């Protein structure tokens, strides 16, 4: 937390926030809000740590990088190493899940596949779905939120009610059923590409009201601000006001809540995979590995720990970074 937050009362005009506010908005010293946020963020070691892990995960997930790393530190994700596994029990013969120089995270029970590279390839799926689904949510949520907040009236009522309906849906059930009933080739996609697309769509589609509500609220208050009044009084069209006046002011909250939505979506994807509607094997996914582990935790407890920690570290990193970003961009949020 960079900005000290007062517990006991003291007038806002003496608040450091307010001081910065005075400096910040029109930049008396030529520092933009973004620069100030960056300054604050840089000072937040924990958030930077989180951001570093996030960056690392993204780099690791890049198409060219994953196989390279898997090659250096492991073996191909689908290669069997059954000689390392007890044929009857299915557990790795070596202790600690078969950790060795060749398999730094150990091996999968039964097949003996290299856990490191499976975790690595799983990261790819998680990050991809997490980020893309967030993008879907943010696009829908922002558009709907702005429309509802800006135009108000029956449009607002309609959209707000729609969001209520969405929020009242038992999402997980719906997502599972939908994945189950959607045909096997669609939109010119098939196989796991289609699976990923469907997961992205479903996760993103069901989560937009969370962003929508926030954007709607922000738009509502922005609409009443002087600069919008000013633009309107000068005869600016709605589209101009929306895109030139309101949208730029929504960039900060959108950025913050997107960052915080990504881990939620990663968890959602992991949950769906855990419940059995994730991507198809043999491609690895973290939730899918845990789902497999429900049958194997007694034989190979490391098979719970490794993918579980991968989820934990990833989600934590995004959360830390998102929290830091929020504190930096919008110290008074919440």
């Amino acid at each position, binding site marked *: 937390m960079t900005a000290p937050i007062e517990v006991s009362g003291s007038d806002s005009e003496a608040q450091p926030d307010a001081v910065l506010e005075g400096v910040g908005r029109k930049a008396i010293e030529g520092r933009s809000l973004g620069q100030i946020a960056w300054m604050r963020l840089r000072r937040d070691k924990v958030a930077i740590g989180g951001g570093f892990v996030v960056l690392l995960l993204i780099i690791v997930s890049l198409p060219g990088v994953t196989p390279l790393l898997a090659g250096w530190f492991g073996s191909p994700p689908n290669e069997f190493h059954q000689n390392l596994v007890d044929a009857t029990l299915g557990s790795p013969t070596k202790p600690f899940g078969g950790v060795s120089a060749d398999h730094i995270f150990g091996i999968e029970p039964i097949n003996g596949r290299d856990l490191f590279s499976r975790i690595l390839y799983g990261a790819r799926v998680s990050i991809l779905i997490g980020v893309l689904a967030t993008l879907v949510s943010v696009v829908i949520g922002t558009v709907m939120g702005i429309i509802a907040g800006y135009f108000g009236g029956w449009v607002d009522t309609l959209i707000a009610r729609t969001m209520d309906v969405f929020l009242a849906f038992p999402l997980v059930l719906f997502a599972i059923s939908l994945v189950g009933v959607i045909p096997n080739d669609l939109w010119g996609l098939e196989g796991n590409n289609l699976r990923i697309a469907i997961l992205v769509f479903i996760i993103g589609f069901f989560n937009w009201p969370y962003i929508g509500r926030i954007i709607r609220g922000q738009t509502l208050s922005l609409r009443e601000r002087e600069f919008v009044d000013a633009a309107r009084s000068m005869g600016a069209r709605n589209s101009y006001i929306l895109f030139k006046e309101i949208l730029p002011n929504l960039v900060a909250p959108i950025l913050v809540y997107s960052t915080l939505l990504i881990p939620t979506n990663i968890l959602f994807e992991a949950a769906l995979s855990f419940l059995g509607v994730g991507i198809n094997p043999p491609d690895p996914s973290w939730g899918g590995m845990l789902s497999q582990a429900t049958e194997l935790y007694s034989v190979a*407890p490391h098979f719970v720990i490794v993918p579980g920690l991968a989820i934990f570290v990833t989600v934590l990193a995004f959360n830390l970074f998102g929290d830091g970003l929020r504190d930096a961009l919008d110290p008074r949020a919440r």
Partner: protein
Amino acid sequence: MVAFIVRRLLGAVGLLLIISAVTFAIFFLVPKAAGVTSDDLAGRFAGRQPDAATLAAIKDRFGLDDPVPVQYGKYIKSIVAGDTYDTGTEKIDCPAPCLGYSFRTNQSVLDQILDRAPVTLMITLGAAVLWILAGVSIGVISALKRGTIFDRAAMSVALAGVSLPVFFTGLLSLAFVVHSWNLLPEVNYRGLGDNPFNLLLPWICLAFLYAALYARLTRAGMLETMNEDFIRTARAKGLPERTVVVKHGLRASLTPIMTVFGLDLGLLLGGAIITEKTFSIPGLGQLALDGIFQSDLPVVLGATMTAALFIVLANLVVDILYGVVDPRVRHS
């Protein structure tokens, strides 16, 4: 206040209607669009190797060849007015609210739901007690001791907590607490007759996640509230700090937490799916999952509607409670 409640009730019913229609559409129209015929649907109810006559008999019984709106109409009608089901030799009366009859399990869907609901209820309530006690108190203390070691430690744990899904903590605890160390028995809760403390592990795993969330929420809410003008006023009056914190601060910051709590509770009461799946507890979530994976449409519809009902009800209760707690809402 009465008008307020009536208005909310009507809204809730409307919401349920919409949800049921959408649910119905998804389960009937989407498969249809994907090329599933009524024969296929009938096949879902048949056993091994059904012949054409069997399929025809099943289609006839379920009205699978009716247009979807007609089927939806029948569904709503049976919820409102009840229905009777023909088992072949005898008519089974299914009084309102009749959520349908599962021909896979030969049970009325409502019976199955009523059978499972107590299990989910126990999971949820036990966890809720834990997470409210732990989450709110930690959040309050953290807010009041902002910046201290306690605050930093608590918030670090909380942030870790919100990043730990139940299917990880649950499996971990099963692998070690139950299996390796034999500290607790297998989770085997099946209904009200069983010892609820058998649910200790699911409670802890579920509550840990939510307690973390609530600690963060409470802390943020408390910090905001303790910065409000009326807190300064309370202090200016010379009230003891404890009164200021509890009576003026906590009371005001609990209302938004109440909203979130209502939603979470509603969501979980409709089926703590992941917890139930992780620990294989036969609650509403498992019922719904089984229904989906067995294509038992009446059960899936019933479970979805129940889940939605809980969410809508929870919203309703929260709205009304809001009116009770906050006079401004009551008077508006």
